[in-house]
Structures are given as structure tokens and as C-alpha cells.
């Protein structure tokens, strides 16, 4: 490539036209994936759109368009555009900020749009003192320099760094994109050849069961956790109107058979352990029940898992029991009708709510009873080492947007020169944004100077 061609390529990549074009293209193509279902079975596409359209959809990966080569290429081009454009413009900003403001001449100040010339009867020293105090009162930290012609220049500026705001936003987008790549399961699998590095997995864990792995979503490959997770219990709580209130899994983490952590997972309260985060995602009710019994005053206990409509004998407690009816909402049992007999008199029959302890008085003694439906908890497991980069990027983006939109680089100059017994003062200012507002500040300060 010749230098000229190279330059024109860089100019193209740095251009705002390209940025505008890419923003337009990204926003319009992104619509496609919201209209055409993503990750559906190939059959569905030919049923819904016909075979020709379905082939086209497969060809352009529209069934997974946000991971398709062309959409990722657009995003990559967008990232390159951001880098080249910022690299192209940043040196200019740095040069601007490095400029020696105290070398500004009176002639230059006279060309500022905000300026006021004041002839003061005060001697120069006193006038300078006043200037310093007015600058200070308004929160401006002034520097001074004596020029060769015997004049003094006061200079102060506010938030010069706000000029970087827009580049901070650009950088934040790049950081977010890098974080997204680092945390992407596809990147871990295909580029790093290490699917343990980042993954999204799932496990359906029955109560009392252990797992040392989860199943990667879509690949259906097992991924080792490096520790064991046990589901101790799963609970559902309901509001009075029947809406679900809480899904909660009590879990234990084990390392080499040793319990290291006992905790709960709820929706919006995930468990983080060794870089893996477990989320309450679903559940599976089983049609069997854990029955805990305790006989008083003997103190003997029993825990049994039984299906409905089956008589169970508890010899040590001297009773038979079973579930003879159930009140269900879908697969979830709200309460069961329990039958219990100790061989003396009539058998007890009573409705028992899940998880609520009841006391049954029998001729042979007092029975404390607790029934619970058995469940499996569905946990999502995610390992995303890039998420902190994404969060950092988000934070920088908000700071950058604020600086870019609402802060401006403001400069104030005061040039003081002797003139007879008094002095000649030129007060000037400039701002790169929000000029109207800065104009008010300038006028107020200039008025104050004139009045004193």
C-alpha cells in the first residue's frame, strides 16, 4: 500500500461518516433478531417462512444473528472505528491542554467573544489584589505571570479534563466489548480451547442430591465445577392470592467431602463461589413426600419418603400412615389428607399443609408430624470472568457522558497593565460548551470588577 492509500484508509476508518453509517446499520439490522425467533429448530423456520426463506435464514445465521459472522463483523468494524477515530483526535486535545495559557497576549484576548476592558483608577497592585480575591470568591484558582512589557496576566481554568469526556465514552464501549469477549463461552471454547474459563450451565438438582458438574447450555457438555454442590431443601412460598412469593434453595458447598459453606439461593440472590455464580432458575416438583414423625413421650423419630396412596408402617412408633388425598395446583401440592392409625379406636384423617408441623393426639401417644413435597431445584451456573470489565466500562461510560455533556472547559484571563496613576484591565473568558451559561458567570464577575 502506498502512504496515500494508507492515509485514505485511516481517514475512512477515523471518519464520523463511517460511525454514523455503522450506528444506522447496527440499529436497523438489530431489529431483525427481534422479529425472527432466535435459536429455534430449523423445521420451524421452513414451516413459518417457507423453504427458500429458511435456507436464506440458515445461510446468514439469522437464527442466531447476534452471534453471526456479519453482525460480529459490524461490531468489530464499529470498535475499529472507535479506536482509530479516538487515536486520530486525542493528540489534538492533549496539545490543546498542554498549551501555555499564560503566554496569551492582550491582542489575542481582545479577539475573545467574552471580554471586557476596564479602566481602573486603582494602582496596579491593588487592582491585582482585587482580581485575585474575586477569582478566589468564584472558585477559580489563578496562576500569574509578569510579561516582558511589565503587564501581569492572571489565568484560571475549570475542568479542562472534561475535554476527554467523549473519549472516555469511546474507551468505555471498547472496555465493555472486551469484557463481553472475555466472558463469552464461545470465545473460551473456540479460541482458548478451555470451556472451563467461561460458561453458562444448568443443573437440575433433586433435594438431598449432589453434583460436581453442570451441563453447558446448548452444547449439552458436562463442565466440572471443581467442588460439590448439594441441594438440602427447596421451598416455594405463596402470597395469600396464590401468586408465588419466594423460590428458595438451601444448598451446601463441599470440598473433598468437607462442608465448607451452607447458604440459600433465591431469585435475585445468587450464590457466588470460586468464580461460579448459581442462580435460582426453575424447579421440578416430584410426586412423593417426605414425612417426619416424632412420637411423644417416647421421643422416637422417623423420616420417610413415600408416594401417595401407599400405606407405610412405622414399627418403632407403632403406627401405619399414608396419604389418601391431595390438593394440588398443577404439579405443586398445597396440602395432603393424611391417614394415621395406631390400631386403637378410629384412624385419624386430617388435612396437613406442606411444611407446617401438626400434632396428632392418639391413644398410644402424641405424634408430631411434618410433611413436605419433594422437589428438584433448577440452578443456572455462570462463570463470566469478563463481567467486571463490563461493569467498569459501564461506570466509565456514565462518568464520560456526564463530563462530555455537562462539564465544559472554561478559561478566564485578566490582563493588567499600568496606565497613568491607575491601570488598564482586560478581562476575558472562553468555554468550549454551555457558552450561554458561562456568559452569565462572566458578566457577573465583570460587573463586580467594574463596581469595585
Amino acid at each position, binding site marked *: 500500500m502506498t502512504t496515500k492509500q494508507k492515509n485514505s484508509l485511516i481517514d475512512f476508518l477515523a471518519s464520523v461518516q463511517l460511525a454514523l453509517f455503522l450506528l444506522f446499520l447496527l440499529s436497523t439490522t438489530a431489529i431483525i433478531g427481534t422479529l425472527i425467533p432466535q435459536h429455534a429448530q430449523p423445521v420451524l423456520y421452513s414451516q413459518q417462512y417457507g423453504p427458500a426463506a429458511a435456507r436464506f435464514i440458515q445461510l446468514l445465521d439469522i437464527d442466531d444473528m447476534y452471534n453471526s459472522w456479519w453482525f460480529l463483523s459490524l461490531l468489530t468494524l464499529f470498535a475499529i472505528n472507535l479506536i482509530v477515530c479516538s487515536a486520530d483526535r486525542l493528540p489534538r486535545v492533549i496539545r490543546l491542554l498542554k498549551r501555555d495559557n499564560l503566554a496569551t497576549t492582550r491582542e489575542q484576548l481582545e479577539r475573545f467573544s467574552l471580554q471586557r476592558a476596564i479602566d481602573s483608577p486603582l494602582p496596579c497592585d491593588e487592582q491585582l489584589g482585587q482580581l485575585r480575591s474575586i477569582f478566589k470568591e468564584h472558585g477559580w484558582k489563578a496562576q500569574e505571570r509578569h510579561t516582558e512589557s511589565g503587564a501581569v496576566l492572571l489565568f484560571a481554568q475549570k475542568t479542562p479534563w472534561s475535554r476527554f469526556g467523549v473519549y472516555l465514552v469511546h474507551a468505555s464501549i471498547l472496555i465493555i466489548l472486551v469484557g463481553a469477549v472475555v466472558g463469552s463461552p464461545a470465545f473460551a471454547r473456540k479460541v482458548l480451547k478451555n470451556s472451563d474459563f467461561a460458561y453458562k450451565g444448568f443443573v437440575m438438582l433433586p433435594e438431598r442430591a449432589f453434583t460436581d458438574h453442570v451441563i453447558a447450555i446448548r452444547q449439552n457438555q458436562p463442565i466440572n465445577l471443581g467442588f460439590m454442590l448439594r441441594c438440602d431443601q427447596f421451598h416455594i412460598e405463596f*402470597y395469600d392470592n396464590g401468586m408465588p412469593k419466594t423460590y428458595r434453595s438451601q444448598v451446601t458447598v463441599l470440598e473433598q467431602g468437607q462442608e465448607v459453606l451452607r447458604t440459600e439461593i433465591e431469585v435475585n440472590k445468587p450464590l457466588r463461589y470460586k468464580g461460579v455464580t448459581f442462580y435460582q432458575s426453575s424447579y421440578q416438583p416430584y410426586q412423593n413426600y417426605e414425612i417426619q414423625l416424632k412420637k411423644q413421650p417416647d421421643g422416637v423419630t422417623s423420616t420417610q419418603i413415600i408416594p401417595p396412596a401407599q400405606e407405610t408402617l412405622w414399627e418403632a412408633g407403632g403406627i401405619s400412615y399414608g396419604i389418601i388425598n391431595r390438593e394440588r395446583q398443577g404439579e405443586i401440592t398445597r396440602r395432603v389428607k393424611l391417614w394415621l392409625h395406631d390400631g386403637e379406636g378410629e384412624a385419624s384423617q386430617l388435612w396437613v399443609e406442606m411444611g407446617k408441623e401438626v400434632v396428632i393426639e392418639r391413644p398410644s401417644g402424641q405424634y408430631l408430624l411434618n410433611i413436605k413435597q419433594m422437589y428438584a431445584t433448577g440452578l443456572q451456573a455462570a462463570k463470566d470472568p469478563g463481567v467486571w470489565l*463490563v461493569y467498569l466500562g459501564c461506570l466509565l461510560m456514565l462518568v464520560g457522558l456526564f463530563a462530555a455533556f455537562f462539564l465544559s472547559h472554561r478559561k478566564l484571563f485578566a490582563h493588567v497593565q499600568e496606565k497613568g496613576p491607575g491601570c488598564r484591565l482586560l478581562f476575558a473568558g472562553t468555554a468550549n460548551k454551555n457558552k450561554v451559561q458561562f456568559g452569565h458567570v462572566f458578566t457577573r464577575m465583570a460587573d463586580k470588577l467594574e463596581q469595585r
Partner: protein
Amino acid sequence: MDSSLLFGFSMIAYILASAMYLAGLLFKAPRFNLAGTCLTIGGVAMHSLATLLRWQETHQVGSGHAPLTNMYESLVFFALCTALLYLFLEYRYKMRGLGAFILPIAALIMAYASFSPRIDDSIKPLIPALQSNWLIAHVVTCFIGYGAFAIAGALGLMYLLKKRGTQQGEQRENGLLPSLTSIDELIYKTLIFGFLWLSAGIITGAIWANEAWGTYWSWDPKETWSIITWFLYALTLHARFTRGWSGTRIAWLSLVGFATVLFTYFGVNFFLSGLHSYGAS
């Protein structure tokens, strides 16, 4: 006194305020505008009070939650944000003529929330997915942004109407309507304000999604449309900053932007399916 009655009063106040502002504009009579401002302030006060009252009422059905959890509550909050931002603009820039374009939006949203058969205004307890402090952060940031974009859209419409009026040589140089340059400047200011809040809304939503579902971005239709909106406003701001676009073009873009906001808000719920379906009823 219950919250729905107070919401009803605030809706009436917005409707009357819209009528006053429109009368002020048509008859070129500033005193109508003053009445409009008083009604808007009264409306916003009742509206805020009603929101707090509804918050208190949620304690009767569950453990209590900020009233920002379904379509009705978000609509009502959208109207509140729009009216509040309008009052701020009026106070800050002393342009009462804007009310004729913005207050009807607030009134319309309130009327839709109250009378549409698709909108259920009953208070329901929170399902587990919504039990998070990110709920407040996410909804508040989004709707401040949406409120600003509603105002930018209204200003865009005002710009285009006024421009057409002046082109047709109408001698209605209405002292109550700001000059084209001031409207243009104000569109730009509301756009950057809205853009900052929209960004914060998308970010808080992503963090919440990561806390609840284990993934901060899943290209769900709601997420995708929010980023489409973001791209569109980013495009508008770049066109203005670097290509010097202003006036008619930015006015049109602020209208297109607001249409995208509306689709992100309503269209996605009504026409597309996805994870983010809480707002649908």
C-alpha cells in the same frame, strides 16, 4: 382517600393544564399560561402524593414495594417524569409556550393508563423475579430518560410546526413560542439529558439481569430495542456535534427517536415476546 382517586385528580389537572396552555397559544394570552402552570404544579403535587400513597397501599397485599412494577404503574410514573421535567424546563428557561405541546402527552398517558381495558391497575404482590432493589434504580432511570425524550419529541414537533408557519408567511410571531434557535438548543439539551439517563437505565437493567438471570445481555427483544434506541440517539448526537446538523433534521430525528422509545416501551410488550414481560399487563 385512595391513590387511584388522587391519580384521577392529577389526570384532570393535566387535561385542564393542556387546555389552558393551548388557549394561551391560540389567543396569545399569557394569563392562560399562568393558569396552566398552576394546574401543572397542582397535578404534579397530587401525582407525587398518589405515588407515595400507592406505595403504602402495596403493604396491604404483600411486603410492600415501590409502585413501579407493571404497565399501569410505569405509565403513571412516565407521566409524572414528563410533567416534572416540563416544570423544570419552564422554570429554568422561562418558556411557557412549551406546555401546549408537552402537557397533552402527560394527560394522554394518564388517560390511557386509567381507561384502557388492557391496563390492569390493581395492586399485586411482587413475583420473585422483581424482588430486587435494582427494580427502583432501573425503572426510575429509564423513565427519567423516556420523559426527557417525550419532551424532546414534543419540542421537535413544535419546531417543525413553527417552521412551517413561518415559511407560509404567517404573521403569528407568537411571543409565547420560543424562537427556532432556542427550541433547537432546548431539543439538544433534553436529548443529552435523556441520553445520559437512558444509558443509566440500560446499565442498571443489565446489572439487574446479571443478578437475576446470570447474564447481563441476552439480546432479548426489550434489550435489543433499548440498544436500538441508544444507537439512534447516539447517531443524532454525533450528527449534531460533528456534522453540524441542527434545526429541521434534528427535530425530525427527535420525533423518530421518540417513536423508537414508544416501540421499546409498548411495542415490544404487545407485539414481541421475551423475558421482559412484567410490563405487559
